[in-house]
């Protein structure tokens, strides 16, 4: 007597909207929703500025971020050094500007690699079901049973030092989340009639997965990826803060916060300014993710 229809299946037109090729009016609607909220606009501007900063770092930075100048160490803010200098006499502003490159580099690389592996795992789980699904879900359960930062810390710490290790660790840390998200999306797309139609005309499993399920599960994935960048940058900063991340003398924001902690009374900006940079970046990407999600499909709110 109890029927199973208590959970409303995802509305087909909700997914239909995202699945349709974007027409001109779609883009206009997207832009109106996105730029209609001030926070999303601010997020967009922040992200653009950060990306430009990373690209033009050598032009923007007044000093070399790595060159020591022990005679001018631990200066307060001045006309020459707007944010002062660190314990080795390096200009903090220049280090923050160059740090943008490292953060974005690691952020994009880690998110990209976790997205590919996670998406493949998620698609496979959703598509094949059965024991494949169970196995993949248990593995992601295990990955998620350790708090994210601890998993990343383990891999980065035991894997040796260097930027590639950091990318690997952060990417690995994100795989489970990506896999779950992709799996959930793919499962809901799978219930749509067009997938059934594909099966009815005799398409192979892989073909259905790649041509029907993946493209339709993709837009929400993009939103997830954007939001993941913020998380990965926070993770990188955390690792570097603990001394297990980006090795010195590279200007990493998290490492700068750690270095500056000892010199709080000399120049608090040494530790506090890089933190503001981290927050801006994370805030920017979070807002862009939120905005894109709302603009693609408000119903995804809560799902992502």
């Amino acid at each position, binding site marked *: 007597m109890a*029927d199973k*229809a*208590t959970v*409303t299946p995802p509305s087909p037109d909700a997914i239909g909207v995202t699945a349709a090729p974007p027409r001109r009016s779609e883009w206009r609607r997207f832009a109106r929703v996105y730029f209609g909220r001030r926070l999303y606009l601010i997020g967009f501007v922040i992200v653009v500025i950060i990306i430009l900063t990373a690209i033009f770092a050598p032009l923007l930075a007044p000093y070399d971020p790595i060159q020591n100048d022990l005679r001018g160490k631990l200066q307060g803010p001045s006309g020459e050094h707007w944010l002062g200098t660190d314990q080795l006499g390096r200009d903090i502003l220049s280090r923050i500007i160059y740090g943008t490159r490292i953060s974005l580099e690691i952020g994009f690389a880690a998110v990209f690699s976790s997205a590919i592996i996670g998406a493949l795992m998620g698609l496979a789980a959703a598509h094949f079901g059965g024991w494949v699904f169970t196995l993949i879900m248990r593995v992601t359960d295990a990955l998620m049973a350790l708090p994210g930062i601890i998993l990343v810390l383990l891999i980065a710490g035991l894997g040796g030092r260097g930027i590639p290790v950091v990318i690997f660790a952060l990417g690995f840390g994100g795989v489970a989340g990506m896999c779950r998200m992709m799996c959930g999306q793919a499962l809901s797309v799978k219930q749509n009639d067009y997938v059934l139609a594909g099966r009815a005309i005799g398409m192979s499993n892989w073909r259905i997965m790649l041509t029907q399920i993946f493209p339709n599960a993709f837009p929400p994935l993009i939103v997830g990826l954007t939001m993941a960048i913020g998380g990965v940058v926070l993770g990188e900063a955390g690792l570097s803060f603990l001394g297990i991340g980006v090795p010195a003398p590279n200007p990493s924001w998290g490492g700068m916060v750690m270095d500056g902690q000892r010199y709080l009374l000399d120049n608090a900006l040494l530790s506090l300014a890089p933190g503001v940079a981290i927050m801006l970046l994370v805030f920017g990407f979070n807002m862009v993710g939120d905005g894109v999600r709302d603009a693609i499909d408000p119903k995804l709110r809560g799902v992502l």
Partner: protein
Amino acid sequence: MTSILDVENLKTYFKTEYGLVKAVDGVSFHINQGEIIGLVGESGCGKSVSILSVMQLIQKPGEIVDGKIIFDGQDLRKYRSNGPEMRAIRGSKMTMIFQEPMTSLNPVLTICRQVTESLELHLDMDRQAARERAIELLKMVGVPDAASRVDDYPHQFSGGMRQRVMIAMALSCNPMIIFADEPTTAVDVTTQAQLLELMKDLVTRLNTSLVIVTHNLGVVARYAQRIYVMYAGRIIESGLSEDIFGHPHHPYTIGLLHSVPRLGEKHGSRKLIPIDGMPPDLINMPPTCAFLPRCTYKVERCQKEPWPALRAVGDQHYISCYVDIREK
């Protein structure tokens, strides 16, 4: 027969980001005691909003901007929508059955709790008395094994059974009017008929008025004594059921009746004719008749003059149209 609800010139607008939606724009109707009324129209024509307005259940960004709602001698618009007077009426003298039985019951509360809620609130019953009454009510609406199923949760009931629970809840405090908003749209056809028969029997027995809001002409044809036909936020034709079905006057009503098959009709004896075009956009409404672009009977006057007021074309039969059409 005495009128228990008089609605005059009701206007409910929604302020959306796309513009002002005039969902209900000057609707008047009345309901007599013990009557079964049909409120008919396409989805989006404002029929649900009309009754939600009467119940004062309109949520932001919607707002009742004008009109009079006289219920049982009281002017409801004088009351705050969530004030004590309105709360005393809602759920007791005036109740509602919603369209979606699947989602209209709270999934985390037992059926018992949800039925007894109104009883405790409006009839001051204690837990035990309310529980017994709830079981009685469930038996009355035909829930089998009511005494044990009363402690079940909604997900353990089928759609039809849940709608019976909704009916039991609506009846629990002996209301004067029950509004049923598309009560059978979400259940299958056989259950539909059972539910409608049940509602009809119960309201006749209890001398309660029933308003059936639906887009399904078949539903009202059988049960309603009087019918209001709505289009684009207004009532465009009203009258006794037999007049509406026997001698429809408004081009829209005529079109509606042409587009649905009738029971017992010989196959192929009559061609089904769909109404061309789309319902109007409620944001940019022209001052003229909203049905004009789709109308096959239009005359020159329709283009020039505003949407006509209702005029009598027979005993209790009104239309809002300049054209005189006689349909057989």
